[in-house]
């Protein structure tokens, strides 16, 4: 299905380039890179759904500087090696702008390529601070950082006055980064961190870990990582009679955790970006998603929508499709988007981004905790 479309796009692009010989093509290609398959494909769905609708709506409103946006979608499976492959493919496709990637461990290596090739990248989901730490000119995000999310989680835990807390992570860039931030904040506040330990992503047997948590007698467990592992830990914790409350970052907060953990997911605490789809000013947009039969409530749907919109706004403000000019425009401007007013600092991080603590329920719904 996809290949013929892509071939067509390439063919059209090539013929236009031949006809125009030096003139800009009458379309602006935006690469969308995220996991379409693999264990975290659910998040990829959010990213693609948000980006596609943004492109449709911008095109319907006349495009950007009279040119239409064209999506080039690629699947990185949330695998760093695959991310490099698809990033190179986007370079060959001649895209100037990328919305992606999703997993921090994919975004990091892919962003090296984009920066070198002069492609502007906005990640709607990667929260690892390292990504914007390298002084890159063309790397942005529409999400907060682990260094913001970790303290929100830790401060909530501190407010619950726990006896002791265990911090577990999946040894990946995202999971370990956020777990480290949580541990440091807890320790600074004098809360005992009884355990700080990694597990292997993709592992299935956590009975030994559960036994160890039980032995440690902790009343809270913070898990840095994604839902496939935490779902199993929750379930095996219930089987092993561990009564501790669990908490995780936005990587665990989606409905797939309910199919894995079942009732054991009840009461899980999750830090998530605020529910942008609940905001009054976004209701028109929410209806547009619902009209397409898509769900705008996932944490990365509107951040992805915003990423596309920012690219469009940036191009208009810079009056140029040169990614370097657009990056300058993004750094200097202030933009009204579905996720609020966006302003960037020098590193490409948003100047402010808020995370909220939610309680997750066994039916997949969530309620804010205060």
């Amino acid at each position, binding site marked *: 299905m996809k290949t013929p479309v892509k071939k067509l796009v390439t063919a059209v692009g090539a013929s236009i380039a031949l006809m125009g010989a030096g003139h800009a093509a009458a379309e602006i290609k935006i690469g969308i890179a995220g996991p379409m*398959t693999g264990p975290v494909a659910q998040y990829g769905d959010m990213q693609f759904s948000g980006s596609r609708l943004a492109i449709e709506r911008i095109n319907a409103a006349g495009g950007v500087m009279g040119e239409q946006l064209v999506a080039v979608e690629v699947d990185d499976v949330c695998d760093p090696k695959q991310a490099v492959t698809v990033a190179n493919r986007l370079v060959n496709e001649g895209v100037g702008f990328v919305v992606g990637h999703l997993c921090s461990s994919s975004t990091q290596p892919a962003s090296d390529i984009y920066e070198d090739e002069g492609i502007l990248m906005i990640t709607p989901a990667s929260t690892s601070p390292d990504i914007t730490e390298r002084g890159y000119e063309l790397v942005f995000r529409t999400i907060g950082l682990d260094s913001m999310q970790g303290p929100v989680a830790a401060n909530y835990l501190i407010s619950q006055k726990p006896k002791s807390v265990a911090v577990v992570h999946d040894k990946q860039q995202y999971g370990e980064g956020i777990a480290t931030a949580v541990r440091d904040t807890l320790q600074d506040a004098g809360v005992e961190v009884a355990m700080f330990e990694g597990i292997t992503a993709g592992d299935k047997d956590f*009975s*030994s870990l559960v*036994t160890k948590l039980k*032995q440690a007698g902790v009343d809270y467990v913070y898990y840095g990582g994604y839902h*496939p592992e935490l779902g*199993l830990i929750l379930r*095996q914790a219930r089987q092993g*009679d561990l009564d501790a409350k669990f908490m995780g970052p936005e990587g665990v907060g989606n409905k797939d955790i309910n199919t894995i953990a079942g009732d054991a997911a009840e009461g899980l605490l999750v830090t998530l970006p605020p529910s942008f789809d609940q905001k009054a000013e976004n209701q028109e947009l929410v209806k547009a998603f619902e009209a397409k039969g898509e769900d705008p409530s996932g944490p990365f749907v509107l951040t992805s929508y915003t990423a596309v919109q920012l690219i469009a706004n940036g191009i208009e403000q810079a009056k140029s499709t040169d990614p370097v000019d657009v990056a300058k425009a993004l750094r200097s401007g202030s933009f009204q988007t579905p996720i609020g007013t966006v302003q960037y600092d020098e590193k490409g991080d948003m100047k402010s981004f808020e995370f909220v603590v939610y309680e997750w329920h066994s039916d997949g719904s969530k309620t804010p905790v205060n």
Partner: protein
Amino acid sequence: MQDLLYFFQQLINGLTIGSAYALIAIGYTMVYGIIGMINFAHGEIYMIGAYTALITITGLATLGVAWLPLVLIIALICAMIVSSSMGWAVERIAYRPVRGRHRLIPLISAIGMSIFLQNYVHLAQGSRNIGFPALIEGGFQFGSGDAFQTSISYMQITIFVTTLICMTLLSLFISRSRTGRACRAVSQDIGMASLLGIDTNRIIAATFVIGAALAAVAGLLLGMYYGSIDPLFGFIAGLKAFTAAVLGGIGSIPGAMLGGLILGVSESMTSGYLSGEYKDVVSFGLLILILLFKPTGLLGKPEVEKI
């Protein structure tokens, strides 16, 4: 007392996982015993067993069948049938046409088979983790009050007992039945066995089928125990089971059992007393040590009957 209970809990965790590893390891060890090759598609057969069991359980639930023993038996039978036919097909497609050629050729065709099966399930079932219903819940508690309590779940007992039953039946089958005797004959000398009128093709196919059926049992049990399955989970389980088979002495059935248990217990003890991060380091470190110092494995002496 506390520490002792903790130790027992980790021991039980390890024995449970270990016995499931042993069930999968049988498939490696039997095939190696007969044709001297490693069936690299075996992990995928285990994964397909787990998927078949899950599909059957879901199907039965929609049909309204709720009596647990019946559900489990039907799921088990379906999983064993599908996995066995996969095992048979792997032998027919990836091994038989290239048997007797250079050793690398069947190895590569088996890896190809493994990639094919993995991706087939990816396409047919999607790549997400699918939750496996917890059918057997509850368990026993030891220890009292606020102190650490050792708990043995019924699920853990089921895994352990089922493995023991399967191993006993398999040993009886190999030592008593006509086909079992033929298996032993083929493993000792395939050429001589065929001269004496044993249909070696049939016996080789039978070992693939038996190994696959046991892998399906492990698939159902571990699916329920862990709580979720995905198309890639056969790969790592296959590696672990292969390690168990080599550890115990590849080609030896009691060796597979012993290897599985040692591996399972050493994994859970590493997670319990060191850190979960070192779990795989220890299991594959053990494999390297065994290969360096006792390449035949713990029970894999040449004079031990190989099958």
